[in-house]
């Protein structure tokens, strides 16, 4: 095998290794190599069923737009052979929107879609500003030094989600742990364990918690997302138990780690690029483009997968019916053919055709919410920064799916 071939193979295999996400820059360098030399790359990694790794922005876009050919089921996210077999033999423990295809997907998505429309999110403005202000006040209280990731970025989005679901602040710690274990189950610092039994235990905990919530919202509906889900109907019938619990779980988890990662990673980028921080401080009207640039830069969701229902040719390579493709969002978001200077963090970037929220019918339900959260937060923080600096080594979570920084030590002085 030539050197290049060996490098490409290693780059492809890296996608299946949780620790590689922790090497952020190296991870991106390897994706760049794949984009250049083998953009439709067959991965045959140890312990995993084979899949095609797609790294070009245009290709990811093309596949996502063909949702009649490329389905989410039966393999919406990457898992090892053991877990894939377990799902095949026992079915999925969860059935969320990402486990569905048409026509069910559209029917189930409608249950919560209204909640996430910009005009309805506007109602949350005041509460969100209050939570953002509390977070920044907390930074002040911590006395000029904190782990921005753990102390701030992880907390605020979860508080927002609790507010939306209508859950009391006393449930905060429990939800934090469960989400982290669910997504962080590959990181040695966070996980409860690594086996399928351990993950089943995490999901069981969620089941109990949300079943109780759901029963209470059925008997006494309140004006929150939890009530909308508890009383949701599909095909004119009440949501089934598994689908209902799955709905809670996806809104609670998908809305949490993703946004936390984007906030922490966005902060890191501003600290690593003081000129961009200054530019934003001097002109806060750049905030919306700055937030999208943070989301592009971090790409907190590392992939979703699709499985072909018929042969399909892309860049002269034929994906056969039954074969799966993995859409690498971090790669699509650094594509040299789509972005000018993709490796430059530019708070004024327009246009910004990133795919961090995916595309097409599965396009992130919470995209507007996530943007609004981030704008509200940075709108509070940026003008109050007098000085702020990195204060030691930062670290990324180990994952093959969702996540960002788990540690970001900073020192600062705020107004």
């Amino acid at each position, binding site marked *: 095998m030539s050197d290049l071939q060996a490098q490409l193979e290693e780059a492809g295999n890296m996608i299946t290794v949780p620790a590689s996400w922790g090497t952020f820059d190296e991870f991106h360098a390897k994706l760049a190599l794949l984009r250049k030399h083998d953009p439709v790359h067959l991965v045959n990694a140890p312990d995993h069923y084979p899949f095609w790794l797609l790294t070009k922005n245009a290709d990811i*876009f093309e596949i996502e737009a063909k949702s009649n050919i490329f389905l989410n089921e039966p393999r919406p996210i990457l898992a090892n052979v053991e877990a894939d077999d377990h799902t095949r033999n026992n079915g999925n423990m969860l059935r969320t929107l990402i486990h569905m295809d048409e026509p069910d997907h559209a029917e189930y998505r409608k249950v919560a879609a209204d909640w996430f*429309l910009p005009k309805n999110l506007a109602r949350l403005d005041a509460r969100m500003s209050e939570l953002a202000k509390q977070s920044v006040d907390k930074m002040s209280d911590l006395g000029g030094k904190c782990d921005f990731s753990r102390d701030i970025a992880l907390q605020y989005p979860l508080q927002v989600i609790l507010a939306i679901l209508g859950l009391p602040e006393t449930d905060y710690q429990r939800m934090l742990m469960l989400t982290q274990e669910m997504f962080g189950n590959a990181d040695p610092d966070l996980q409860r364990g690594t086996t399928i039994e351990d993950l089943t235990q995490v999901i069981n905990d969620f089941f109990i918690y949300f079943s109780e919530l759901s029963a209470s919202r059925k008997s006494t509906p309140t004006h929150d997302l939890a009530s909308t889900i508890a009383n949701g109907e599909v095909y004119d019938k009440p949501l089934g138990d598994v689908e209902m619990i799955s709905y809670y779980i996806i809104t609670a988890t998908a809305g949490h780690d993703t946004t936390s990662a984007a906030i922490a990673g966005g902060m890191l980028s501003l600290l690593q690029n003081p000129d961009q921080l200054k530019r934003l401080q001097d002109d806060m009207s750049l905030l919306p483009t700055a937030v999208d640039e943070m989301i592009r830069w971090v790409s907190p969701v590392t992939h979703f997968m699709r499985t072909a229902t018929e042969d399909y040719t892309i860049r002269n390579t034929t994906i056969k019916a039954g074969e799966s493709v993995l859409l690498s969002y971090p790669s699509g978001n650094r594509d040299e053919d789509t972005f000018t200077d993709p490796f430059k963090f530019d708070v004024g970037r327009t246009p910004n055709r990133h795919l961090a929220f995916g595309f097409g019918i599965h396009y992130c339900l919470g995209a507007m919410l996530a943007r609004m959260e981030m704008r509200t937060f940075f709108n509070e923080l940026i003008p109050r920064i007098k000085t702020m600096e990195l204060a030691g080594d930062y670290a990324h979570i180990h994952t093959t799916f969702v996540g960002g920084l788990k540690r970001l030590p900073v020192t600062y002085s705020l107004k």
Partner: protein
Amino acid sequence: MKVVVDFDLCASTGGCARICPEVFEVRTDGYLYVLQDNPDDELRDKVVEAAENCPTGAITIED
């Protein structure tokens, strides 16, 4: 062909604009604008693709 967007459903994702910029545009104010209500028939395929990919089902095509 007549393009109708239900603005009560549209979530300003910009998906349609990426598929068919001749007809759809999301401006910096965050709203979607339909640039032409009655696009030429040669744009039909792209408009149909945009409608199929709209995550909220906000786009319909009349005749």
